[in-house]
């Protein structure tokens, strides 16, 4: 079975390719890429199906290095099947899922369960991120060596940051031995404590306890120092403040091995979104000020922030339709990420190739996974999207099992037309 994607503008940020090309797919792999019309004779073959990408961008399948698939344990919120369907609908062909499942993914059994489920049900590549410490409790290291043999590429305690700097140092040193990427959710919990939103005029007005920007920045500074000390690269998850961008910028200038991601909501919304006690604007780290949003955009432009990841965090109304203090943190993001990222292109913050790099090769390189690029002989993971087509976000149409998005009703531009994973169509508009 052969497939031909023709008439598209092919952008592969990893190879700086931006050209009109036809792509031939054979046995789930990219067999060839050539000038439009080069495969004309092949089209006579009944075995070849053609996909028109006229007026569309054809790019590597998107990579989301930070999602929560909730399986095992919270299948009422999301499963590996529905989560990867949502990924496909958003143009993603690879996701890295965080370890805060029930039970926590801190051992080989849970990792094997996730991988086996993914093999059977997923419509995107699933890369489980294992916990760095047992139970994400910050005291005992997980069996990272064995986990890496199973295919784990990264470790993180994500929402439960390791407060003990010595444990963090040892975890980094140990993970480094196995080439595992260490991902840090930076939050000094002794400072954020009972806070439920960004500390600023909105929190004061609403009478909610705040989480100052410093809670994030202190730990990023610590992680940068530990990366310098150990020589092991650190990846900073979901950067949300201007100060964080500055700390990472300085660390990079110093040659410290540090990379960073942000999420679309940190460049699309501010703490004002919480007004009215909107629990769909409750996340951790919290939405910050417009000055922070501007700095995040600048950081993306300057490549201080390497990747855009969604932190896709499905929750049901049981966790979200509550008084603000009691509601869970997090929003879903897989099905809005591309359109929101394209706003950065439309407003001149990033060019298209730069924007796509942050959703493809950059996260793939940070995780050291074979994804995020168009390579002859490589897996045919390809996304086709129309960059200018107006879309109205409709949460009722989401493939995700959850509906907790603050972007419902937003008018955006850019629509995923088709997602191809290992040569097979996993989403078609």
């Amino acid at each position, binding site marked *: 079975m052969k497939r031909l994607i023709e008439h598209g503008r092919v952008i592969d940020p990893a190879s700086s390719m931006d050209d009109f090309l036809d792509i031939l797919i054979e046995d789930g792999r990219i067999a060839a890429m050539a000038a439009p019309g080069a495969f004309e004779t092949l089209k006579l073959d009944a075995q070849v199906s053609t996909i028109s990408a006229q007026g569309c961008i054809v790019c590597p399948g998107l990579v989301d290095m930070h999602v929560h698939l909730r399986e095992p344990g919270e299948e009422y919120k999301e499963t590996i099947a529905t989560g990867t369907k949502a990924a496909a609908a958003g143009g993603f062909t690879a996701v890295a899922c965080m370890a805060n499942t029930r039970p926590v993914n801190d051992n080989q059994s849970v990792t094997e369960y996730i991988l086996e489920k993914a093999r059977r049900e997923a419509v995107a590549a699933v890369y489980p991120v294992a916990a760095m410490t047992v139970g994400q409790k910050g005291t005992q290291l997980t069996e990272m060596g064995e986990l890496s043999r199973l295919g784990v590429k990264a470790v993180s305690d994500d929402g439960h940051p390791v407060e003990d700097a010595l444990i963090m140092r040892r975890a980094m040193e140990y993970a480094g031995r196995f080439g595992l990427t260490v991902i840090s959710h930076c939050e000094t919990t002794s400072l954020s404590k009972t806070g439920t939103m960004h*500390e*600023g*005029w909105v*929190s*004061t*007005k*609403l*009478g*909610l*306890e*705040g989480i100052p920007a410093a809670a994030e920045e202190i730990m990023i500074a610590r992680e940068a120092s530990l990366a310098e000390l150990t020589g092991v690269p650190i990846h900073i998850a979901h950067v949300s403040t201007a100060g964080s961008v500055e700390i990472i910028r300085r660390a990079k200038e110093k040659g410290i091995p540090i990379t960073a991601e942000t999420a679309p909501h940190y460049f699309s919304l501010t703490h004002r979104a919480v007004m*009215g*006690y909107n629990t769909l604007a409750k996340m951790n780290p919290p939405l910050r000020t417009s000055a922070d949003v501007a700095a995040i955009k600048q950081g993306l432009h300057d490549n201080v922030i390497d990747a855009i990841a969604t932190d896709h965090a499905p929750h049901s109304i049981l966790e979200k*339709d*509550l*008084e*603000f*203090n*009691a509601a869970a943190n997090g929003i879903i993001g897989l099905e809005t990420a591309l359109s929101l990222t394209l706003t950065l292109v439309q407003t001149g913050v990033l060019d298209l190739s730069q924007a796509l790099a942050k959703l493809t090769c950059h996260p793939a390189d940070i995780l050291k996974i074979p994804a995020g690029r168009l390579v002859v002989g490589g897996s045919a993971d390809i996304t086709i999207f129309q960059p200018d087509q107006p879309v109205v976000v409709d949460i009722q149409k989401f493939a995700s099992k959850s509906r907790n998005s603050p972007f419902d009703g937003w008018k955006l531009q850019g629509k995923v037309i088709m997602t191809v994973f290992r040569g097979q169509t996993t989403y078609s508009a």
Partner: protein
Amino acid sequence: MPLISLTQKDLLGIEDLTPEEIKLILDTAEMLKEISRREIKKVPTLRGKTIVTFFFESSTRTRTSFDIAAKRLSADTFSLTGSSSSLTKGETLLDTARNLEAMNPDLIIIRHPASGAPHFVAERIKPGVINAGDGMHEHPTQALLDMLTVRDRFGRLDGLKLAIVGDLFHSRVARSNIMGFSKMGAKVMVAGPPSLVPPFIQHLGAEVAPTMEEAISGADVIMMLRVQNERLQGAFFPSVREYAVFYGLDRKKLALAKENALVMHPGPINRGVEISPDVADGPQSVIMDQVTNGVAVRMAVLLLLIGGRAGEKAN
């Protein structure tokens, strides 16, 4: 044209009220005060109306005040507390509120430790909701009774200088009063230990003074806030002793304010901590007037929300 009724179904915060609406509530309260001085302290205005007080946080004064206000207007009142309600059985706030709604009350009065909880309920049920204090957010009827008390003495609010001193961070009374008094044209200065002054409080309409002395100098009104010393001592300020030295109101500090300045406190008082006994019981103290006015203001609010059209039906 002067307002004759409130158009909203709820009273959730001073933030949502216009100066005209505040004036309407205060004028209505003024008119209703007379009922409480009668031999038979009851009018039939709200007969057949059902009011539920739903307090998920301990309170003596506010709950009793609402209860008396409702009864003086002949409404039927029912009261639920955190421990007697189903919340302790794992029912969510929303489920409890919907169950209350199903019994067709006209008004639900809520106090809850989570900021925004009354707003959350009000958005989801048909009956009106009065916020009787939500977390660290607002306590609108307290601010209204405070404004009534001050207006009684000075005949106006605009142009007055109000000083609010103490734990501003945790205080819903402070937030509502800052917004209320500044909306009515008063100048509001606040002071407290820096660890208890929330960031950007000036956005609410207050000016932050570096010291208590500076805040109260030349003030017409001094409002002292309660210090929850059990919770705060050590973590927010070194000791109650030191707190009293820098942020307690005694006669010496009181002399910095205007000669006829009023001393207020939302209660309950920690005598000897935020306020010395002689000041609390002194001639400038209007603390008991606040309590009396609380009933009048709450009667006004009940009447304006569920009493039909205009305030003149009170008699």
